[in-house]
């Protein structure tokens, strides 16, 4: 693959998905796009790029799907889910009026393990919830990965990464060599396609945003823009969770890190700190 073609692909994925790739990643681009080449009967990546540039949205989406990374697993990193169970939900349940739903957005949900893990925790918290409606909205830029999430089907390797065996038995049935999560769990998550570069205003306000292990693929100005969009969509006393290698420090002044819990970030409220913030500081 020639350098000009590599540069075209880099420009394409930056424009369409905000993802930063460098010329050193030429091997990655080639490896990821090779299956698309074969399936689309294209002779070269240059031809794929030409078709995408001419407005072939299907090809463009296939390229985005191929070039995005979908590394995830159940209860990934554990700590964010402990925060969700032990800090975030108890605070929100205490603060929100009984009839008001608690709204969660998993902003880059990949194949669905993160929102499905939340469903399992909410089941454990059923008594505490007292019938409270908790909405889980989960988005990703890749249509292919969203289709996989909605299918609820995982291979043997995937169900052994982070998922306790008792939950495998409780929520999954075996289908051939794969495992299928209960349709009831899938139904409790609203999956939808969303590009983090787009305007999220129509989605309403959220109490919790999980945006983990995705911002590492963006450059700093893009990360700042995405933090702005999330801050605008997050309740002033809401919570944002990032991946272990991600931080708001030096990127945005719309969030402060939780003083004790890594990966947990709080919006800088427009008004004086709430009781909860003084309680956890």
């Amino acid at each position, binding site marked *: 693959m020639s350098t000009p073609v590599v540069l075209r692909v880099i420009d394409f994925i930056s424009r369409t998905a905000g993802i930063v790739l460098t010329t050193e990643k030429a091997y990655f681009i080639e490896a990821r796009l090779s299956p698309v080449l074969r399936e689309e009967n294209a002779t070269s990546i240059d031809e794929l790029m030409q078709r995408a540039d001419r407005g072939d949205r299907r090809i463009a989406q296939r390229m985005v799907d191929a070039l995005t990374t979908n590394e995830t697993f159940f209860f990934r990193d*554990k700590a964010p889910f402990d925060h969700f169970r032990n800090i975030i939900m108890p605070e929100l349940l205490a603060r929100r009026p009984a009839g008001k739903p608690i709204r969660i957005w998993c902003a880059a949900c990949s194949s669905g393990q993160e929102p499905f893990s939340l469903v399992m925790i909410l089941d454990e918290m059923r008594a505490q919830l007292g019938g409270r409606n908790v909405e889980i909205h989960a988005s990703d830029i890749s249509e292919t990965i969203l289709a996989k999430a909605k299918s609820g089907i995982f291979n043997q390797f995937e169900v*052994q*990464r982070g998922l306790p*065996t008792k939950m*495998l*038995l409780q929520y999954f049935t*075996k289908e051939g060599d794969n495992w299928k999560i209960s349709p009831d769990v899938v139904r409790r998550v609203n999956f939808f396609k969303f590009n983090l570069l787009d305007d999220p205003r129509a989605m309403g306000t959220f109490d919790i945003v999980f945006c983990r292990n995705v911002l590492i693929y963006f450059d700093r100005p893009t990360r700042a823009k995405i933090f702005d969009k999330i801050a605008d969509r997050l309740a002033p006393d809401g919570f944002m969770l990032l991946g272990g290698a991600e931080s708001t420090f030096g990127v945005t002044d719309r969030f402060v890190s939780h003083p004790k819990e890594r990966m947990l970030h709080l919006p800088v409220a427009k008004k004086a700190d709430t009781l909860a913030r003084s309680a956890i500081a």
Partner: protein
Amino acid sequence: MKYCLVVDDSSVIRKVARRILEGLDFEIGEAEDGRQAMDSCSSRMPDAILLDWNMPIMDGYEFLTKLRRMTGGDRPKVVFCTTENDVSHIAKAMDSGADEYVMKPFDKEILSSKFGEVGLV
């Protein structure tokens, strides 16, 4: 350092498991079947046992049932590690006192995840 007994009739599996678990800071002992594993537990009760199901002389299920009746046999965390990957086998293992279950083939990530689940990593 925690002590883990790897019980499997395949020397290859024992070798792979040993390499992974030593990397997770375990001291490793080995047994080729349930009978050898019982003898090993009688002389030194491990903190963890990685246990195959199908083995000659005494299989993993029989070993686990006997282990849990032994004095101190309730202490080791037992992680089944087997090619048996249907729901009935998994449920039977968990009901009989296994703490976690690994379906072969496995890698470092899976073993680390499962030993983490039982509080040993």
